[in-house]
């Protein structure tokens, strides 16, 4: 058993990004900044051009503004889905009301970033969004009697589906993907909460308690183990498929 440092759950390759933003300055800065972060960026300034690029190339992620000349962002997103382009889309817009956020997410966007945003936040979100779509060549994880479908984000134990919240799923995914390694509370806070709260908080314990309860830990085999004062771990043979 080893106590993990911060080895990532997934590995990041050179990501190819399509940026659709009509504001020339913002378009230029984002392109420049993302390139400096190591991304490959194609930048266009209208929806029609964006559609052409998206259908002609294979992107890892698309950054889409909503207020575009001609086809607006919603039209572009709708057309992409109609043309079976399943590339994850992050909407970046100054339309900050809930209605637009909900509409965008309902139409299949992965995330919605409200303008003005911090560039580092955009990079962080790009990494989170792409983590789900690239870097893992497998979509199922199985350990003991627990199976995780990473694409559908579903969990089964003894072939009985267990309904987890997004955070509980991410927590289980982190533990299973790093099985036989103790994950410290600090690491869990950083990776699952992305918030550096006071470690005396009972946040992780309570969520872990809920996860264990849902996994039926009281009844069957105990999957998630506690290393008192250190962290949590899952033991067993991990099968990826």
């Amino acid at each position: 058993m080893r106590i993990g440092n911060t080895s990532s759950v997934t590995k990041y390759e050179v990501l190819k990004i399509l940026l659709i933003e009509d504001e020339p300055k913002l378009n230029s800065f984002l392109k420049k900044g993302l390139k400096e972060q190591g991304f490959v960026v194609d930048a266009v300034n209208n929806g029609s051009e964006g559609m052409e690029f998206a259908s002609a190339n294979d992107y890892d992620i698309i950054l889409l503004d909503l207020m575009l000349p001609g086809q607006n962002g919603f039209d572009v997103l709708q057309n992409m889905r109609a043309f079976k382009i399943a590339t994850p889309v992050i909407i970046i817009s100054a339309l900050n009301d809930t209605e637009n956020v909900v509409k965008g997410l309902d139409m299949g966007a992965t995330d919605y970033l409200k303008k003005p945003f911090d560039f580092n936040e955009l990079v962080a979100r790009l990494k989170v969004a792409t983590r789900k779509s690239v870097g893992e060549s497998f979509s199922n994880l199985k350990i003991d009697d627990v199976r995780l479908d990473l694409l559908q984000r579903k969990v089964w134990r003894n072939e009985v589906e267990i309904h987890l919240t997004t955070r509980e799923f991410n927590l289980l995914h982190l533990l299973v993907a790093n099985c036989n390694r103790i994950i410290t509370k600090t690491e869990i806070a950083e990776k699952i909460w992305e918030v550096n709260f006071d470690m005396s908080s009972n946040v992780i314990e309570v969520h872990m308690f809920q996860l264990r309860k849902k996994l039926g830990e009281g009844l069957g085999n105990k999957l998630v183990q506690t290393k008192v004062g250190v962290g949590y771990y899952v033991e067993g043979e991990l099968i990826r498929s």
Partner: protein
Amino acid sequence: MLVFSVITLSVNLLIYRHVKSTLKAADDKELLNEANQLLLRTRNDPNIVPLPDSGRSISMHVINQSLSHEIFTSPNFPFVTDEQAMYLPIIETSQYKIATVSSPLNDFEGNKLVLSIARENDKLQKQYADTKSYLFIANAVAIFISAIFSFFVSSWVLAPIAKVIDSANKIGASKSMKRVKVPNTKDEVQQLAETMNNMVVRIEESIKNQTNFFASAAHELRTPLAIMQAELSLSLTNEDDPKRKLTLKSLLDETGRLSRLIDDFLIISELKSQTLMIRKKPARIEEVVYSALKKVKHLKQAEAGRFLINLDDNVIATDISFDADKIENVFINIFDNALKYSPADGSIQIRIGSDANYSCKVEIISRLESPVEDISRLTGEYYKSQAYSSGLGMGLWICERILKLHGGDLRLFQKENNFHVEVFI
């Protein structure tokens, strides 16, 4: 009603006075007749003293110019102090009435026989009192009946106006306001309802314009801010000079502040025009707290570790219906205040738990450097306490309004150098 009462009372007072004078005249006449009858019975002979009816008393005098000679006076005849008044035809007090008649004697000496008859005056006084009572009762009954009658009549007559008022009261300022029901009466009431609806259309238009203006202005301001933030973030990443890095960081903070101000102005405008839409969806309260913390952390990265979170198992296991976006703004505001106004090394506790009257309760406790005066005014519009005077002074006002729109509440108090903010949803 008041006018009717005043007129009725005045008329009844006149009637009473008229009846009173008529009764008095009839009574005077009756007593004078009685006196004349008795005087006739003396046949102008002062030695014959007539016997009055029961309850009467008499007094007889013979007078010659100013000299008066009493012939007979009944023992119970009232004592009249004023001698001049004694010879008036009628003397009346509340106790008695005296009628006096005279007739010349046939003695050729110019003597006159004067006869006065007295009786108690209670009968007339009773008649006065009865008349007064009857009129008063009649008056009161008339006012009461007319009040009921006028109430029903006015209710019936004003029913269409009442309906218009009721509809008008239900109209709230929003982008799509209710209309007043227009009765098909082809009168002033219909005209009033139509006028009110026209006014509602104008108000609606004005609210739409205002909301659109703020939304457009916010959008137009956010785009340059996004450019500035992107440029500053990028420059900050590439900058090695510590001094320039500090300047860029400061500029980046200011753009963030401007961005929050724009959001606040937009939400204030929506709250004031009652156009803020609350879209409730089942969500987890703790997730909104984490999300808010991430955004506060973004503002004050170094201080994020100060937040100590305590969760209640039961609350986090259930979905609560609320507008996550708006509630997130409430928490960002409260966390930001807690960071701003507590000592840099002070812990900020967040307790997420249940409450008997609400779906959940989130308590934020931070240490205070100095006591806050007028805590009750902190949720007021544009209120800034003297000790803590940065910002618009609208943050807690916005928080309270958003929570009230959710049927929740915001409570603030201080206890043992700690400032407590309780959020109920």
